[in-house]
């Protein structure tokens, strides 16, 4: 079987499943407080947006989900005007393996969280304006544009914006960032109790000495971000991890 994915809005304008998928994406954007409608003015560069459609399949080839993603045409952005820095650090493989070795040696369990639409959580430092998405123009405000508070997919600065966001949140939660590995954070509330967290873009691996502290950390994270709780760490970066007692 071959699934043909739509290329543009015209092809799905009358398709119910895809309309639903686009609504879902916009709801996520609204829920995240991503943007606000503002008046257009000629001195602000406005970036176009585009719908990208993806059919997610189950392993047996049947359709799991229609996914519509709204992306900004980041290639039109100009350095120094629309964005400054674009990089986000990721954990080194050695760091992850060291964390696994340490947890095993101490008899700690490793857990994993996955941030849904991580990049949409990133707060922008620059002023960025985008057009309204095709098919979902606000009534009587077709000439208006959106001013972004948070990142959209496709923006040059989205990885950086997300990293800044999670970094700020972890510091607020009293985590200390490692000086030699900026994606590794530790927190020790009382003597002898330790929790270690590693950030790999939208994947979070964490371990620590007390189960109570670990579930408290999970609660803190799930309150702030849309998360999937993946439970015990079992797959990461193409590696399979098996934890036994």
């Amino acid at each position, binding site marked *: 079987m071959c699934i043909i994915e739509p290329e543009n809005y015209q092809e799905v304008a009358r398709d119910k499943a895809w309309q639903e998928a686009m609504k879902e994406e916009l709801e996520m954007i609204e829920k995240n407080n991503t943007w606000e409608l503002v008046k257009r003015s000629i001195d602000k560069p406005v970036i176009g947006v585009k719908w990208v459609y993806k059919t997610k399949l189950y392993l047996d080839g049947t359709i799991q989900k229609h996914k519509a993603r709204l992306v900004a045409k980041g290639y039109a952005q100009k350095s120094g005007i629309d964005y400054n820095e674009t990089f986000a650090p990721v954990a080194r493989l*050695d760091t992850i393996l060291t964390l696994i*070795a340490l947890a095993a040696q101490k008899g700690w369990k490793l857990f994993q969280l996955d941030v849904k639409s991580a990049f949409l959580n990133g707060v922008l430092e620059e002023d960025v304006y985008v057009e309204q998405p095709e098919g979902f123009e606000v009534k009587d405000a077709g000439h208006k544009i959106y001013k972004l508070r948070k990142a959209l997919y496709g923006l040059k600065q989205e990885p950086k914006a997300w990293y800044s966001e999670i970094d700020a949140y972890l510091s607020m939660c009293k985590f200390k960032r490692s000086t030699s590995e900026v994606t590794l954070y530790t927190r020790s509330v009382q003597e002898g109790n330790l929790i270690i967290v590693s950030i790999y873009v939208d994947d979070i691996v964490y371990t620590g000495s007390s189960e109570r502290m670990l579930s408290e950390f999970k609660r803190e994270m799930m309150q702030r971000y849309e998360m999937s709780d993946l439970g015990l760490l079992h797959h990461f970066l193409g590696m399979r991890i098996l934890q036994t007692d």
Partner: protein
Amino acid sequence: MLSKFGLEDCKPVSIPLATGEKLKKVDGSEMADEGLYRKIVGSLLYLTATRPDLMYATSLLSRFMNGPTKIHMGAAKRVLRYVQGTLSYDIEYVRDQSATLIGFYDADWAGSEDDSRSTSGYAFSFGSGAFSWASVK
């Protein structure tokens, strides 16, 4: 991965590289399929994330990504045959070992036939499985 290279039924060997064989850039043999060679080395590089035993061989093979010869290709396929015999290998990290940090390091002192530069390697552990390793020329 082995079936990707048509080697799912290949005969296993017990060590990844032939002992005493020195690979060099120009070895007099014919040129091999560069695309295929790169694919094999790329796949092996992926495996080195959890297989320190493939680290040296893979890093050695990766030096010949530009213009691999039939001899290089032979060596690469031999590594795949070694993989065939060691499919069940993984790293085990165990509890309650002494929490000593142990490091190993060695170099081959100008071992390269092409430019007389050295290759060095290291591995670190807390007493059980290694968690950090590399082989660098």
